[in-house]
Every structure is written in C-alpha cells, then in structure tokens.
C-alpha cells in the first residue's frame, strides 16, 4: 500500500500549505510554491484542500503505484503518462495497483502538483508536511525524493471523486513565457538612486538557471546603483548592505546592485542586503511557474491595488471550491 519512487525527477518534494510561526527562528514557511494549482489538484480529488502533494519541478518523477487510487495533476504542463499512455492533466485519473506514472519534461511552466486521493501521509513537523530541505525538516526525511523512497497514502475521501472530472478551462492558470509581476515598492527602496529606482520597472529581466525554491535570481537588466553613504556601524561597506534584518517572503534584494533575487517560500529568513520591493501575495504563484531564461517585468502597485489583487485571488480560489466542492 505505497508508492515507490523509481526515478525522483529533477527536484520533487512533498509540500502542502506550509508552516507558520517559526520564521523568527529562521524556519521559513515552505509549502507548494504555486498554492493555487496545489489546491486545485486536491479539490479535484475531493481531498482536504491542503493535503500533502508532490511538487514536481521541470522533470517529473517516475512512480510505481502498489496501491489503487486516484490522482490529479495541476500546474505546469508536464504530460503525464500511465504505463506509457498519455493522460490528461487537470483531471481525475484512476490508478490500478502496479501502474507506473511518469511525465514528459515541462513544456510550459515550472512546477506541476501531483495530488493522490487521501494525500501523501507523513508525520507533520511543526504543523506541516512541507519539506524544508535546507534545514532537513519535514516532508520525506527532510529532503527531496530519491529513487527507492516509499510513500504512503492517507485515508481516501469518503466519497471518491468521479474519474474524468476535470478542472474547467476558465479555472486553469495560463503559463506564459514572460510575465509582469506586481510589487509594492518600499523597505529600502529609498536607498536606490532615483534613476535606478525608475529603470528597475522599465526593463525586462530574465530568470537565471540557479533559481530554486529559496529564491529566483534575475539577470539581464542594468545594474542598480544605490545612493552613496557613510556605512552605518555594522552594515557592511557595500552601499547595498544593511545591518542584517528580516526578509519578507517575496521581497526583492539586489546584492551589490547586480542581480535582483526574489525570495520564495523556502527563503533565507534574513540577511544583510537591502530589499527594494516585495512581490504582492497574489503574484507569488506566478513567479514560481517561470522557467529559467523566461522574462519578468515588475509593475509597481500601491497597497490598495495589492489588496484588490488579493481579493481577486481569493475569489478565484472560492470559485475553485464551488466548481469542485
């Protein structure tokens, strides 16, 4: 009664809604980077919305099911195959004991979410099943999956979702190859030279290949210049340095003015680089679906616009729940 990992894929990990309340100890929230797609996959199956799933990145895993169950895959376009036969995504699929599931490499988007009926069953650590690999915490032995790992399933929902039920197209997220992400300027933005603060929002940046769950590093824009200053005690000599401080999830720092980094849900919780803006909560999912070398442009919004976007995001989630509830 388990799922055996034949091939782990590029970076597959167990994730859920993440853990709150430990960021002050350096333990970040973790959790599915695209929360919308993760919840959609669970809702399709009739699972609890935040049941643990597998987050599959670019190159999905190959899994052998020694248990009959239902699965659903949402998020990045990574053609799933059962025993080699192509299957639709965004749809409830039936798995028989002995079946093998694998994926073609991502054709669009970065992360697909594989939900199984009953969810991946693991002990919660600090209130969550999410993997925080840097701290060897949570998930499957605190790490990404490896070949030979055995995953067990939780109790299946009392009413099984009908096989073939699918996510309406209108509720599927698009996966563009370049996108505009909304940010709230602030934090240490005042330390930028005005021309750099303006240019940051005019240029297109591209996602660097080392981007991961900790952060997205961006290339291709003009280096940013900070205002010259006398370094405050303890801040460090470079004008992009600050006295080490906490980093918001989604905040954008620019070490030495060169390559901006957007921190995601496995963020380092703090450090000594000035942050100049923060991606609004409604757009964090979008960032995490960008592949290396894809384009990103930033649009500055104010708090009122950020909160409106938040309401839209929540309304979308509500629609999901109604459509699949």
């Amino acid at each position, binding site marked *: 009664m388990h799922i055996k990992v034949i091939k782990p894929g590029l*970076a597959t990990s167990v994730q859920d809604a993440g853990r709150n309340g430990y960021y002050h100890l350096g333990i970040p929230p973790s959790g599915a980077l695209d929360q919308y797609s993760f919840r959609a996959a669970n809702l399709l199956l009739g699972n609890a919305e935040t049941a643990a799933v597998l987050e599959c990145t670019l190159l999905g895993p190959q899994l052998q099911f020694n248990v009959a169950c239902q699965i659903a895959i949402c998020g990045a376009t990574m053609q799933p195959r059962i025993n080699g036969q192509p299957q639709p995504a965004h749809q409830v699929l039936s798995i028989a004991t002995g079946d093998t599931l694998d994926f073609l*490499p991502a054709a669009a988007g970065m992360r697909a979410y594989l939900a199984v009926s009953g969810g991946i069953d693991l002990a919660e650590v600090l209130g969550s099943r999410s993997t925080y690999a840097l701290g060897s915490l949570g998930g499957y032995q605190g790490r990404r999956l490896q070949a030979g790992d055995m995953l067990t399933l939780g109790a299946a929902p009392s009413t099984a979702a009908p096989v073939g039920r699918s996510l309406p197209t209108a509720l599927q997220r698009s996966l563009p190859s370049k996108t505009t992400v909304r940010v709230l300027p602030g934090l240490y933005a005042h330390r930028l030279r005005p021309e750099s603060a303006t240019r940051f929002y005019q240029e297109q940046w591209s996602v660097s290949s*080392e981007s991961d769950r900790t952060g997205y590093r961006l290339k291709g824009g003009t280096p940013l210049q900070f205002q010259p200053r006398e370094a405050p005690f303890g801040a460090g000599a470079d004008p992009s340095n600050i006295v080490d401080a906490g980093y918001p999830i989604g905040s954008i720092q620019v070490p030495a003015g060169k390559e901006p980094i957007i921190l995601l849900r496995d963020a380092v919780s703090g450090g000594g680089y000035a942050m100049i803006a923060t991606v609004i909560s409604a757009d964090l999912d979008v960032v995490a679906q960008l592949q*290396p*070398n894809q384009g990103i442009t930033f649009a500055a919004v104010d708090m009122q616009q950020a909160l409106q976007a938040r309401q839209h995001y929540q309304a979308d989630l509500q629609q999901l729940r109604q459509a699949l509830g």
Partner: protein
Amino acid sequence: MSEHLIHATLPGTFYRRPSPDAAPYVAEGSQVEAATVIGCIEVMKQFNEITAEHSGRLLSFLLEDGDAVEAGQVVAKVVS
C-alpha cells in the same frame, strides 16, 4: 546519410565542458555513440548530461558554452 537534431529537454544554461577548466566533452567533427555525452544543462545548481542519441559524426553545435537554452531548443546536429 541522415541528419539528426539533438534537442534540449530542460531549460537552463548549456555547457560544452564538465567544468570551466576541463576540455569539451566532444569536439565538432568527432565520432559519437548514442550514449556519448556531448554537453550538459545546468538548472537549479544541478548538471544534467545531454547524450548524442545517435551514433555518427557530430556535425556542429548550435549553442556556445554558457549560452541560455530553452527546453526543445536544438543543441547540436549529428549525421549518421
């Protein structure tokens, strides 16, 4: 004689050599087997090897060492 295009399966950064100061995996014009490693793609600090997939002669690379690469992009041509 037929020409085969070798595609990248992953996006990332393309490298023709295993490390910056090493020799290239293969030179243009050399003989390759299907399992011969001809380059690698770095993504999320992991290096994923690309094999020739066909035996024959590696005609040319379409990417330079260190170039950005998209999934599906042609990396090299092999003639057999």
